[in-house]
């Protein structure tokens, strides 16, 4: 399953860090962060609940970049 989320982040390198953090989150098969359009496209593993995974993703992203947000 693929979903697209709106994000808020200030710098391009921080966006890259978020991408890395999201990809390391369990339940995420692949995540791409587009800094220019402020979007995160997430492909989930089979049979996971996107909402719960996204909560983890947000937590992990906040760890690497405290000033970011993901809207879901």
């Amino acid at each position, binding site marked *: 399953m693929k979903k697209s989320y709106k994000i808020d982040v*200030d*710098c*391009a*390198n921080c966006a*890259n860090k978020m991408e*890395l953090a999201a990809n390391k989150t369990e339940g995420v098969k692949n995540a*791409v962060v*587009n*800094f*220019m*359009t*402020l*979007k995160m*496209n997430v492909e989930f593993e089979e049979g996971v609940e996107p909402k719960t995974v996204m909560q983890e993703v947000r937590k992990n992203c906040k*760890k*690497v970049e*405290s*000033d970011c947000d993901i809207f879901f």
Partner: protein
Amino acid sequence: MNKKQKRNLIRIIITSLLVIALNFVEVGGALKFILYMIPYLIIGYDILIKAFNGIKNLQAFDESLLMALATIGAIALALYTDGDYTEAIAVMLFYQIGEWFQSYAVGKSRRNISELMDIRPDYANLIDENGQINKVDPDEVEIGSVIIVQPGEKVPIDGIITEGTTSLNTSALTGESLPKNVSVGDEAISGCVNINGVIKLKTTKEFGESTVSKILDLVENASSRKSKSEDFITKFARIYTPAVVFSAVALAILPPLALMISGNAPLWQTWIYRALTFLVISCPCALVISIPLSFFAGIGGASKEGVLIKGSNYLETLSLAKTVVFDKTGTLTKGVFQVTAVHPENIDETGLLHLAAHVERYSTHPIANSLRAAYPNEADNCNVSEIEEISGYGIKAKVNGDVIHVGNTKLMESVGAKWSPCTHLGTIIHVAINGVYAGHIVISDVVKPTSKDAVYRLKKSGINKTVMLTGDSKEAAQKAAQEIGIDAVYAELLPEDKVTKVEELIENKASDKDKVVFVGDGINDAPVLSRADIGIAMGAMGSDAAIEAADVVLMDDDPMKIAKAIKISRKCLRIVHENIYFAIGIKILCLILGAVGIANMWLAIFADVGVMILAILNAIRALFVKDL
């Protein structure tokens, strides 16, 4: 400017004024320290908070943490020697100026590009059963509904015109400034602007499947497909920051130790200062921002010109194109048959066309269509009767009492007309009046008026080889190729042969870096489009299959756009490379100068912010592609 940008701008201005004012205040010791801490905290409090979060989350290479370390270190050194605090504040100030500029420029180009692509319709005028017009969300309109489009409005959903005549402005989609005239039975593509007449449409698609949604979706997601340059810079940034931080640590410890061992004064202050300079240069933001911004601007500028590029990666590959392979019919030629020559005998040209058009009055054969197109006022008051189709031969009819035969040579022979052969290539239509030969009409596919110039421009922009693939006969293919100036022709190919030919060309290219582009009209050539390094589909307005299969989509069918697309990609990639070399070069230069003590913190932060600003301004240049 948003709220955050405004607040930060005010902080920047206040800090600058305070620093200037403090220069004129003669104080020393603790009071001086306290006075200088005011602007430092005003400009740096958020960085310090983020730095603290960085420590908490064990992010050793967090930029804010590094910036905080560098400035706090500089302040500590100044405190120790009762020196100048301005430097630390300046580093924080310029860092914030850089961040502010980045946020402003990126926000601005985001808006610019969404304005360029301002084709999203906000509503549709739906007509209900009672004939009432309701403004509704385009998403709610079902297939087969009737909607009305007033002058000045955008066509919200693809549909067929059921009432009215108008001109449509397609420039937002195709970059073509000439309006398109449409009337009942024609297709109206969503995203076009209705110029003068009121039209009613029967929708043929849902909003989500309409051209305008597809295009917006495609452009918005294009920059998510990242290029190799972006991957490179992301990886580089991942190594760069830790590497610089470790060198900073080494610089702070190793030289003083070496000096101590060799019996000299260790000069701790000097070396720690140089290490702090390293931390200032360690922020990779200038490198990282300029690359996606360049691609974003390049893709945005291209879509304004009617060239849709489906990803940054394709833009990158397209810039390496060395061979361009064309499909002939529909790409270099119009793909419709037209009368290209009229050779009458004992009658004038218009007379011959006139008769032929009459005889073909009711036929729907493509040849009949082109004959009628060559004589548009066919429905005059001539008396046409007894039309009889002779299968495999042609058509016979009575026009104003004369028996007219229109058809092939076999038909001429069967009525005893002495036909003469023609040197032209194409389909030859012979005409006989009362059994006497009256001449022939040549019908063939015609080369697009811009094809020759397009190929010339491609060659001028560095394309080594142009190839034409076609299912047509050798003679027709050779003739077209010569006329256009194509290097190599492969004729009489079946669709699967085209794939094999493209594969051959890909295998035989001089180096791996040279890319093979295939250009087709998206009909029957989806396999070739996907097999080539880059598949370009042209004239794709409204054709889903083509949009699906191709990497680059040209909204209209002008071959000049191919050269334009390649030039846009080259310009964008040139900017990307300039930015990569420039930013990395300046950073490394500053590191070297910092290590030997020539560059101080002032220079380091100037270089850092300056490089970022220049790289961003350079990246925005990728947006301007109109005159390429």
